[in-house]
């Protein structure tokens, strides 16, 4: 029973660990973004699991998780767009991109 009781948090912790590992080792921004999403999923799992009571489910953590997921989706979308723009810029032949106009580390 003990394991089942802690199944959600434990799985969440594993996901956080995996995501973190990925984030540390992966170099491509898109992969990093995905790794971060894995971490996020882990955290939501932990949070969501908390509300799961024996008789009734506490809606409060669920609400938090839903809000969190909305935020995470928005951010992921934004990040993906950003990555896309960077990739476009890198592909641009003339280098007129707005990137690094103020090159701080020339």
């Amino acid at each position: 029973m003990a394991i089942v009781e802690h199944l959600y948090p434990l799985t969440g912790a594993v996901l956080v660990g995996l995501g973190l590992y990925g984030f540390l080792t992966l170099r491509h921004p898109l992969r990093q973004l995905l790794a971060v999403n894995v971490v996020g999923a882990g955290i939501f799992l932990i949070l969501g699991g908390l509300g799961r009571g024996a008789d009734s489910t506490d809606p409060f953590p669920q609400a938090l998780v839903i809000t969190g997921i909305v935020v995470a989706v928005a951010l992921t979308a934004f990040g993906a767009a950003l990555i896309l723009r960077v990739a476009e810029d890198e592909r641009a032949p003339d280098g007129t991109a707005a990137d690094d106009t103020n090159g701080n580390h020339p």
Partner: protein
Amino acid sequence: MSPLDLLVAAPLAFMIAALLSGPWGRWWLLAAIPVMAGLTVWLLLLPEGSGHVVGGWTLPLGVQLRADGVAQLMVAATAVCAAIVGLYALHEFAPGADRSETAHGFAFWPLFYLLWGGANAGFLTTDLFNLYIALEMVSLAAVAMAAMGSLRAALRYFVIALVGSLAYLLGVALLFSNYATVDLTLLAEMARPDLATKTALAVMTAGLLIKAAVFPLHGWLPPAHAAAPAPASALLSAIVVKVGFVILLRLWFEAFPAIIAPAGLELLGWLGALAVLYGSVQAIRQDTLKALVAYSTVAQIGYLLLAFPLVATAAGTGGAWAGMTIHATAHMLAKAAMFLAAGLMLKAVNGHHLKDLHGLARAMPLTVAAFGLAAVSLMGLPPSAGFLAKFLLLEAAVEQGAVFAAAVLLVGGLLAAVYLFKPLAWAFAGSDTPVVVAKAPLRTAAPLALALLAVSLGFAGQAMVDITAGSPWAGPPATEAEDVQ
């Protein structure tokens, strides 16, 4: 109705309005400024610590917004900064000739209001999860603004900020699992020194340190802040990092002062000291102006953390607390002024480097004066607010016998003088007057006003001290501090 939720809601409303108005979005600012000013004044007039629960839900379910001293001060300072930076940006972010300019002109204004609203939420909320949302709003706006300068730097910023947010969120989750609430005021009552709480606190703090760009987690800041357009840089350096800092304050001094061991405070203090020294040394090394100013932010944030052990050890709502909050305010104003001035100067000479400023003091005396006045406050020289803050911190450090902290405060000021006088020296160099093309020269008034405010707040020291002392948790009660030891 309460100004508390309006302060968050109004900017968001303006955001939507700006988003919908397209090319004319920027003119909403003229409506936003009086509205926000009114709300801010209202906030300042509220009695200390008066709270407002959003939507009528009671705690622990509801989300509480509360006007304590630090919130009042930070919201007010943010309003001033945002208003002035916004006015400055009216020219810069207008529909322009080419596509990217126009795109920036469209994009900036919604982001601006998002940032403003997010920051206000971050300063006013006592709900940890809501703070997460605020943090993300601000980060999103900040990254997008940074992206206007350098996509690459913005991406790096984004990824790292995301990690920080998640670390914070993890902590929130842990706390909720432990206490079944995420409201600070409630947590403060039931805080227990157990494993989960400590883990949560450690993880959240680490995450917030990223947001506040504390050494050695500041790596994202200089490229992003240096690359962004001047008004964006000003907002980023002035406001965004402060949100992380204020949440940190709430965690350490409001929610968990009872379980915090001195060693933890010491650790933060050390990080702050290192940040001051490291940021200053890096700033001295820079040869581009905005990078220099950005590193200066790293150094200045260090002071805020340096103050942590001082605040905790201080006897009451004494000088250290006031010093820390005044420093945050002063830095907000001065750094915004400095970035705006830097932007004007660099635009005028069409360069990035310090040497491009050659002789500019004669061509643009007012802009250079604004830069200089802001520098005075950042260096902590009298009679500026920066001096007041540093003086109060120094006094606290000396009273507590914290020799190292005192030394860092003084040396940090000196190093600041070294890097800040570098650009000034260039501006004063030579005897000829360079020919510069300054578009919309009236904009000089913006940095000048901010810098003058930063300096002249030094005369209103007691008023600021009084405001910040209004926090119900400004400085832990003496008994609790003793318990820890």
